[in-house]
């Protein structure tokens, strides 16, 4: 609890410090990290607590991003309309996809969620009115009213931070509720929970819908942040990236999504933007190959630290 409070204070102070130092770019970068943290945290609910290997989470993030963007493009700039609409659309989509997919198990569940996400990817690709495969550029970010200008990086940062903290608190509450206990029990032994008379399917579906809705909110924020959205937010590699973040951070750990998003995006950024002279001497163009490093780190983590970074930290503490 004390650690969470400390982290939160640090996150609140961060943009002020950066503004003072004149590194406003990092405020925007941190917003992006936190948005991905929200998306990864929502996937962590499904993956880590629900034990459902959904390989199509990008569909919900993408649906939220597109609904919010299309509303802005059509002149409905208010975030109070756009963001709830994104959440509702993603929740509805998650309900449809979940209702069908959850009838399958194991590998087939992975594949069918992937198939639905690909369907969405191609549908969005064909929406020529909204950019098709070139994507949709927005004139501005959504408007929040209340005298707050989301175009200001620091204001945007605080809004995203608020959403992230709310998402983490919600995850904490859900996991420790009766609902969460049942969910974890299903993950551990589905047949036993079923035998106890619990409607497993309904619990899993609700979990899937909650996660989809949160993913949609992350998508809406993502579209606002970049003032741009293209079909690649729904590509299966994006679903894979979100999965990586969850695993990297820690499956079924409260902070797993946050740690994973920060480490992965941070790693990419550091490799791409900070040349190391000694490495550049050995391999002159290494910065263009950042994902080689990301791939190797990921492989090592999967092979040698299956509990992720959060798992490493807590294991050290217990040892």
């Amino acid at each position, binding site marked *: 609890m004390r650690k969470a409070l400390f982290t939160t204070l640090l996150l609140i102070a961060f943009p002020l410090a950066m503004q003072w130092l004149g590194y406003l770019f990092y405020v925007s970068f941190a917003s992006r990290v936190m948005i991905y943290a929200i998306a990864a945290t929502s996937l962590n609910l499904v*993956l880590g607590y629900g034990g459902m*290997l959904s*390989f199509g989470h990008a569909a919900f993030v993408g649906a939220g991003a597109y609904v919010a963007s299309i509303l802005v493009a059509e002149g409905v700039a208010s975030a109070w309309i756009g963001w709830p609409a994104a959440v509702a659309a993603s929740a509805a989509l998650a309900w449809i996809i979940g209702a*069908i997919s959850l*009838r*399958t*198990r*194991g*590998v*087939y569940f*992975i*594949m*069918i969620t*992937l*198939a*639905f996400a*690909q*369907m969405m990817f*191609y*549908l969005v*690709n*064909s929406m*020529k009115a909204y950019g*098709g495969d070139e994507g949709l550029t927005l004139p501005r970010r959504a408007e929040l009213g209340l005298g707050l200008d989301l175009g200001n990086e620091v204001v945007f940062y605080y809004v995203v931070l608020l959403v992230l903290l709310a998402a983490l608190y919600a995850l904490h509450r859900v996991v420790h509720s009766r609902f969460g206990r049942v969910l974890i029990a299903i993950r551990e032994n589905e047949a036993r929970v079923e035998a106890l008379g619990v409607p497993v399917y309904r619990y899993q579906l609700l979990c899937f819908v909650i996660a989809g809705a949160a993913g949609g909110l992350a998508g809406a924020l993502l579209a606002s942040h970049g003032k741009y959205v293209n079909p690649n937010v729904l590509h*299966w*590699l994006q679903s*894979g990236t979100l*999965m*990586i973040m969850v*695993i990297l951070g820690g*499956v079924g750990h409260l902070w797993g999504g946050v740690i994973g998003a920060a480490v992965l995006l941070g790693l990419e950024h550091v490799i791409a933007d900070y040349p190391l002279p000694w490495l550049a001497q050995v391999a002159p163009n290494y910065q*263009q*190959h950042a*994902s*080689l490093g*990301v*791939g*190797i780190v*990921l*492989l090592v983590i*999967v*092979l040698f630290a*299956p509990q992720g970074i959060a798992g490493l930290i807590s294991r050290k503490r217990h040892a």
Partner: protein
Amino acid sequence: MSWILILEQSLNGLQFGLMLFLLAAGLTLVFGIMDMINLAHGSLYMLGAFLASTFVQLTGSFLAGVLLAIPATAVLGMLLEVSILRTLYTRDHLSQVLATFALILIINELVRLVWGSDAALPMPAALSGPVELLPGLRYPAYRLVIIGVGLAVALVLYLLVAKTRVGMLVRAGASNREMALAMGVDIKLLFTLVFGAGAALCAVAGSMLAPLLAVQVGMGENILILAFVVIVIGGIGSIRGALVGAVLVGVVDTIGRAFLPILLGAFFQPRVASAAGPALASVMIYLIMAVVLYFRPQGLFPARG
């Protein structure tokens, strides 16, 4: 004119489907025998195409280049299996998905380091012209060769799996791994061999398709998902299912791309139709898969009895 067009597009669909089958066959065996999700299968397809491009340049002959690329890819595949993938068999699907996803990133970048982002593999000049199949139906010779190669490989594969001792062991492994182990089958060696064969099939598909598509980094990713769709439709572990699924997906995709815009054009504005047609064709494949999974969760030809 119309039926010739349909025939031509069906042949295109068959040609694409057969190449998909080559990818799916290796994937379905790996999946069926070891219960292992290998996302890096598409990377072997890419490696096969890049290797073929280099060997064709070195030897100056298309045939020799392709024939060299096949064993080279098989060796790379077996190295991959022995060094990394082998440790993943006992892990859960999540670890397998992530580790092989990491391999995609690594292999993509390594290919970019060695070859650059793309390579050229021109069509052999002797096969670049059309052949008159029927009066009025002139079909590219190279595509006919692909169909021939695909059918031949499918036949060899069938004979290998259905009629030989090794094939029997493979089928035994796919239908019940524990039982096969208990009967004294050296699953480890068998699997390395199967993986090598799968990689070789990837190289065949990669190098044959290369003159038609582009040889570039990332070429394996989209076709990999199609191959997964194929094996899920066909039933995991079943070669016959992979063949049926691949031809189905190939034909639906190709015919859909060719005719859906025309069909939609009857109802919508041409601009809308030309945009929505190809997308709808792509969606249709996944729709077929969702429907098959919903009604027959084990696929059309389940391998496990």
